[in-house]
Structure formats: structure tokens, C-alpha cells
């Protein structure tokens, strides 16, 4: 990229801060491959796991991370009832308006509202997080190389840095983060949430559940997509057989 001096300077200046020394050093960490129910041709979301994952998001992640593309009504898709969704939505206060007097009003959330973001804007988020910006999680599994595997691994990738590695002030060592130094402190710890369904909240369980939830959030159409895909392939295979038979018949007297 010697051709773009300005860009190169930009890339060096900003890119290195964002990407960290992992790219500079060219080292790569192999992501562990986790088996999820949504993988494969007939993959489907594990509703119970996704619901638990939402609980983890709501009680842990949501204090810093927004999911501004999600609406509370979407939660019906992972098996929550209308009443449950309404109750969840009603726990937040939403700014609405202006009313007829020109005043903005606060009202309880409705199912049609988007997930309420923890911070009013990026500046507020940075101010509260040591100048780091917790990314929106709506499409996070689509927005990271490695997808669900990466998110799962990242949540479990915290630990003490290897000997000789100096972790900067305010950062934390994570095996799977590019550059190994992440601003987010270890978010999950053993037994951090108390699952409504009685499942034991191990670290691994919570990471798996929240990954299930985030993958659903990023690709809510996945089940419908794959089901339609299977039908399409079957239909096209039969159509292909017919088309080939027709072709053979048409060409019969030429060959």
C-alpha cells in the first residue's frame, strides 16, 4: 500500500491502536470450534438457551452494550409469550413525544420499542468506560471474523497474561482478542446470573447461552432461510433432472 501515504499514515496511527500488536506481529490464535445447535443444513436455535442468553444479556451485557436494532417484540421468536415480552418492555422508561404541549414524556416501554440503549450516545458510553466504546451487539456475530465461535471464545478467553507480556493500564488480557489487550473486563463469572429455569450458571453455560442469543439476534431469519434453502435445493434437483431429460430427448436425433 505504498501508494497511499495519507491513508497509510492513518492506518498506522489509528489501525494499530484498534488492531493492536497481534496484527503487527502476525501471530494468530486458533479459535476453538464450538458445536452450536444452529450450525449445519438443518440448524435451529435452541429456544431455552437463547432465552437464558437473553437473561445474561439483560443482566450483564446490557449495562454497557446496546442492541439498537432489536425490538422487544422480536423476543416472541425465541419463545417468550406476549405477556412476558410486555413485562420485559415495561421495565424500561422510554422517552417519547413531543406531546400536544410540546413536551417530551417518559413512558414505560412497549413491545414495539427498540431495546433501550444503556448510553445516550457514543460520547457518554466512552466517558463511562475509560474512553472505550462498547460496540452495539445487534449484528456482532456477523461483524466478527469467526462469528459465534469468536464471541464464545472471547468470553472464555480471559486469564493471566503469559510471562513477559505487559498489559496496559485499564486493559485486560484476552487470548482471543486481536492484540490480546481488551478494554472490557471479564464480563462473566461463575454463577453470575440465577437462571429462571434452574440451569446451573457455569461460565461455559453462560457463554454458550449468550452466544446462542446473539447469533439469533444477528440472524433472526436463519431458521426460515435454511428451511427454505432445503426446499429450494430439493426442488431444483428435481427440476434439473427434468430439464436434463428434456434436453436429452430434444437432442436425441442430433447426436
Amino acid at each position, binding site marked *: 500500500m505504498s*501508494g*497511499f501515504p495519507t491513508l497509510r499514515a492513518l492506518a498506522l496511527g489509528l489501525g494499530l491502536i484498534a488492531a493492536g500488536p497481534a496484527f503487527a506481529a502476525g501471530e494468530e490464535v486458533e479459535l476453538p470450534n464450538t458445536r452450536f445447535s444452529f450450525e449445519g443444513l438443518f440448524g435451529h436455535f435452541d429456544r431455552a438457551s437463547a432465552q437464558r442468553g437473553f437473561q445474561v444479556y439483560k443482566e450483564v451485557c446490557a449495562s454497557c452494550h446496546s442492541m439498537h436494532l432489536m425490538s422487544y417484540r422480536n423476543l416472541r421468536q425465541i419463545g417468550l409469550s406476549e405477556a412476558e415480552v410486555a413485562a420485559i418492555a415495561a421495565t424500561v422508561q422510554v422517552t417519547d413525544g413531543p406531546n400536544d404541549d410540546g413536551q417530551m414524556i417518559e413512558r414505560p416501554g412497549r413491545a414495539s420499542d427498540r431495546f433501550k440503549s444503556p448510553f445516550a450516545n457514543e460520547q457518554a458510553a466512552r466517558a463511562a468506560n475509560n474512553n472505550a466504546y462498547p460496540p452495539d451487539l445487534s449484528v456482532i456475530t456477523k*461483524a466478527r471474523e469467526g462469528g459465534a465461535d469468536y464471541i464464545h471464545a472471547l468470553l472464555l478467553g480471559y486469564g493471566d497474561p503469559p510471562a513477559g507480556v505487559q498489559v496496559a493500564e485499564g486493559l485486560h488480557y484476552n487470548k482471543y482478542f486481536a492484540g490480546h489487550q481488551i478494554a472490557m473486563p471479564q464480563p462473566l463469572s461463575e454463577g453470575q446470573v440465577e437462571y429462571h429455569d434452574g440451569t446451573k450458571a457455569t461460565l461455559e453455560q453462560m457463554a454458550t447461552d449468550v452466544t446462542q442469543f446473539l447469533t439469533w439476534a444477528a440472524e433472526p431469519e436463519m431458521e426460515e*432461510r435454511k428451511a427454505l*434453502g*432445503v426446499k429450494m435445493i430439493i426442488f431444483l434437483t428435481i427440476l434439473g433432472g427434468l430439464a436434463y431429460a428434456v434436453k436429452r430427448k*430434444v437432442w436425441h436425433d442430433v447426436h
Partner: protein
Amino acid sequence: MATGLHKSDFANPVIRWVDARLPVFTMMQKEYGTFPTPRNFNYLWNFGALAMVNLLIMIVTGIFLAMNYTAHTSMAFDSVERIMRDVNYGWLLRYAHANGASMFFIVVYIHIFRGLYYGSYKAPRELLWMIGVVIFLLMMATAFMGYVLPWGQMSFWGATVITNLFSAFPLVGESIVTWLWGGFSVDNPTLNRFFSLHYLMPFVIFGVVFLHVAALHITGSNNPLGIDPKGPQDTVPFHPYYTAKDSVGLVVYFIVFAVLVFFFPNMLGHADNYIPANPLVTPPHIVPEWYFLPFYAILRAVPDKLGGVLLMFGSIAILFVLPWLDTSPVRSMRFRPLARPFFAVWCVTFLVLLYCGGKPPEEPFVTIARVCTAYYFLYFLVILPLLGRLERPLPLPESIARPVLRGGGPLPAGAMGKPMEKA
């Protein structure tokens, strides 16, 4: 010239009435019904028709996407995700459109490969070929602008890098870039004009495709033997023979397309484009879409910016003069024993360039890309012109019908004409 009604033979009185005044039915019958087509096409001849279908898919899905898309920097990203979530089958529209672009380039690359291998660019089809190169250029421009519209990180930074290429030109370069951007950086005016042009260009492509097909129907199709049909025994009517054969290819094409759309919709994209565009954060590796990578590799292979830009444009511009660079009178490489291995190596270099374009600009990829770039141009500028003089081609078959019929026996009755009876 005589005026009055066109003489129409259609039995249906309504069709005949229309056809006598506007002979579109006669035209369709002539160009796609009885059109004499060499009888020896292999399945590589499907790809022109596939490209046509692909263009229509892109236009139709694109029109519906445009109904739901918002071309504003603060809303574009979210409007795309809204299409994915809240528009009925919006995910199908968007994934079909995004992967349709990849399919379009796969199809067109194979179509170009076919033309290169069987010498379809040679007289009398030079203009047909050149119009094809124009379509390819228009496709690249359209695809590039389309990739900017979701306003993700790669959209923004890809647009920044590619538009910045024009700043390499001395004196006017910077002004051109400002003019392209509509400002002093890639921003809302850029997004707006790219959306406008992205909607316009496919219709321009459609017009040029019409010229491509019109020119094809003057010269007729080339064929795997690269020799001209010598009479009706060498051809079959387009319908039903090639409509039937194209249908087979079309279904296979749809299967590949469906696998991408339904099971690996994001495989050919870049994860960074699901991060909203941020002018303050540069992604560690800015890469264009996969179909641009060979040319991106050529661009980066040159240590000088202007040189790289010129070579990149040159790599496509050279195709315009290919009909005159290849001096061999023999079209099909089946009969060119020397040209074949050189062309095979050229195909490999193209794929290696594609691979290198996606890698960071460091060793060994830089050196590999340089060697491949050199060969890319060497093939066209030196090897092809020399081969025409040095190579001794294999003897050409007497006619198309002969090798096909093995022994040149008489044609079975009904092999030509009366196409409708067999439909």
C-alpha cells in the same frame, strides 16, 4: 422502400395483427426461435444466457431493495438491517442481491474464459468482444458503487481507497477526487450519488447487452471448433435445442446460487462490513470484494502509485486490443498445441493474483503478485503475438458436422428446421 404492413405468418389472428404492425414476434422467432446456431456447443456456451438471467435478477431484487433503502450516512446501515429483519423476505432480497453480484462475476469470468480459450474475440467478432469488455467495465463500476451502499466499514474504506486512486493522476488528480466525492472526503454526497448511479448503471448495462446480442446475431456464435458453419448441416435452430440445453445450465446455476444465498450468505462478504462506517477507525486490512482482487493485486504490485493505477486499468484496457494482439488465424485452442499451455498458465496467474489481492501487502505475496502481473501482460503483449507466427496449429476439421457425426454420415431427418414440433 415499400411501406405498409409487415407480412406475418402467425396463425393466431391477434398475434398476426400485432406482428403485421410491429414485427416483434417475427423478430423473436428469427433471433431466438429458428436462429441457426452451431450444433457443437459445449456447456461453456451456457454462460452468456446465464449472465443475462443474472442481470435481470440483479435489476429485479435491486428495485425492491431500493424501495426500502435509505441513502443517508446516518441511516443507510440501519435501513439495510431493517430490510433483513422487518421487510417480508427482505433477507432473501438482500442476500440474493449481494450474492447475485458474486454469481454475476463468476458467470462473466467463465464467459470471458470461454471467449479467450475458443478465440471468440477474433474476426469477425472483434466488436462483439469489445462491447463485452465495456459491459465488464460497467459491471465493475456498478458493483463497486453497490458495495458502498450498506455503509459498513469496508464500504467506506473501500470507497476511500478506490476513489483515491484517481488522485494519482498529475495536476488534475486531486480535483477529480473532490469532484467524485462531492466534497473533501467520502461522505453523504458520495453515498447519494453512488446510490443514484448504482440504480442507473444496470439499465445502461442492459442497453449495452442489447448491442452485444445484436452484434452476436450478425456474426453468429463461435463454437468449440472455432470454424465457421458451412451450411445447415452444421447448425441447429436455437429453439428447442439451445433453449433446452441452456435450461440445464440454468438449473445448475440456480443450485449454486441457492447454496450461497440460503446456507453461506456471508461467506463471500467481509465481516467488517457489518460494522457501521466510521471515518475515524481504519480497518487493519482494507480489501475490496473478491472479484476485484486480481486487479487490486496488480495495483499493489507496482511500487509507484500512478504506475499501479495505470497498470490496473491497463490490465482491462488490453482486452480491447486483444483481437489484434493475437495474430493466429486459428480460433479454438483445441488446435493450438503451443498456445494452450501458455493460456493455462495465464489462467493460473489470474487465480494467484486473486489470492494475493486478498493477502496483506507483505512478502512473499508482493513478489508473487509482481511475477504474475508480469506474466499477465507478457501473455498478451509478447506471447500471443509471437505464437501466431511460431506455432504450427493442428489440422482443422473440415466442418462442424463431420467430427460430431463421426464419419460424416447423412443427417437424420428432422435434425433441422421445424423446431416447434419437438418442443
